[in-house]
């Protein structure tokens, strides 16, 4: 437990970066985790194939909020093709907490990545667990 609630995670959960919405997003997608009722929406402003700005909104546990906060930091300024290739393992490395043996909390961490990818690919939903 103390592994997953490291100070960095708690900080991001308390004071999430890039929290909010964009007025005219190029892409906006919301993902819902029916298991725990968490929601994460990601708004992207894409200019010349690059993610020029990003915001996320929604409600969820510390893991899902911190994950969204760190992911949005990471992809700001990233080109769209690189962001599309951003994998589950990349995200887990980024947030730096051991969740591989905790499938329930893994879903919390991956919620923002699902929203990002479904938004970028323009599809209703993607399965990032199987990557």
């Amino acid at each position, binding site marked *: *437990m*103390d592994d*997953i*609630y490291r100070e960095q995670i*708690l900080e991001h*959960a*308390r004071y999430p970066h890039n929290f909010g919405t964009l007025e005219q997003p190029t892409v906006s997608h919301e993902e819902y985790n*029916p*298991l*725990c*009722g*968490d*929601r994460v929406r990601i708004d992207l402003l894409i200019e010349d194939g690059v993610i020029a700005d990003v915001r996320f909104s929604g*409600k*969820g*546990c*510390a*893991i899902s909020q911190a994950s969204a906060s760190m992911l949005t930091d990471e992809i700001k300024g990233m080109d769209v093709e690189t962001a599309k290739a951003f994998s589950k393992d990349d995200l887990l490395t980024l947030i730096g907490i051991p969740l591989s043996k905790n499938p*329930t*909390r893994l879903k*919390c961490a991956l919620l923002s990545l699902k929203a990002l990818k479904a938004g970028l690919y323009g599809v209703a939903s993607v399965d990032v667990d199987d990557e």
Partner: protein
Amino acid sequence: MSILSQFDVLAIRREFPILQQEVNGKLVAFLDSAASSQKPRQVIDCLEDYYRRYNANVHRGVYKFSEEATFAYERARGKVARFIGATSPRELVFTRNATEAVNLVARAWGDANLRPGDRILLTLMEHHSNIVPWQMLAARVGASLDYLSLDGEGRLALEELDTKLTERTRLVAVAHQSNVLGTINPVAYLAERVHAVDAKLLVDGAQSVPHMPVNVQELGCDFLVFSGHKMCGPTGIGGLWARREILEAMPPFLGGGSMIKVVELDHSTYADVPARFEAGTPAIAEAIALGEAVDFLNRVGMASIRRHEVELLGYALERLAEVTGLTLYGPHTTEQRGAVFSFTLEGVHPHDVAAVLDSEGVAVRAGHHCTQPLHRLLDVPATTRASLYIYNTAEEIDRLVASLEKAKRLFA
């Protein structure tokens, strides 16, 4: 604790091997029995004894093992039937769980008895298993659904019966006890009202049959469903009780072996009840072990179990009220309430609460507990739930409260 003087909870705990385990360096405080209870040694031994000593299919072989298995399986049916006050073992159908039992009624009884324009009355506190099968039935037959709403304490708004119980209502399905709020519903009163409009009453006993004396004659219902794994029995076994004449008039649910009399090439005739509803090889070991679980519960006594839980319930309500920032859903008194506590903690997501509790060896559940409509009514996406049973102690409630304080400090 002196409050538990008549009930030797420590002796009972010794019967449950899993409770001797440590989690994260602390003796486990298992507070998730509303999801699934733990199993006493005699139930675990019973499963093993069947596989080691007389494993064979039932109602088929003429050899010793099969005869012994058949005898034990049918004896278990008798034990379970008596446990809920059935007048005959023939009124008790073994199912996988309460969910399958509801689906059985919806398919077999519902398809044969509901017509377009008929109505099914549910409540906003129902578990998904007592909602979705009725939605599916309504879609098949062209019926519609009504829901009784709840008051601020999480009790049924009974005055709505005057308008929502109509002459087109064919069935009312209601939980005996809410798996989230703990509310115990006035089933006997509902039965009177339901029968006055010539409808049938199905009671979801998943949360009541394990925790209090339940007698179908006193409830006055027409169907009772329950799950074995919540009452010290194994997973994969549960029950449907139905009034004899209703059960006998019902067409089959699943087709296959054991549920037939004669099979021709183009049609078949069906077995008498309850075999008609038990197609295929049943969960034999599990049924026999559920009979063993019933023996265990009877030895402790259902009235004693209920008394123990009401004492803990009163203590838990007091202790939880001391936790600032905690919102408890459901009745705040012990009156007509079970020992189930769903709550939110200000500033801490229910999943995070459960994870912090787990680090202290306290096992609770977080989520919507298969009651999305109820959580929408409460206007929260999720809650944390602690639920008590026969083996829980006041000390474990103290640990729950101390762990909640730890969660508050961590996320402050």
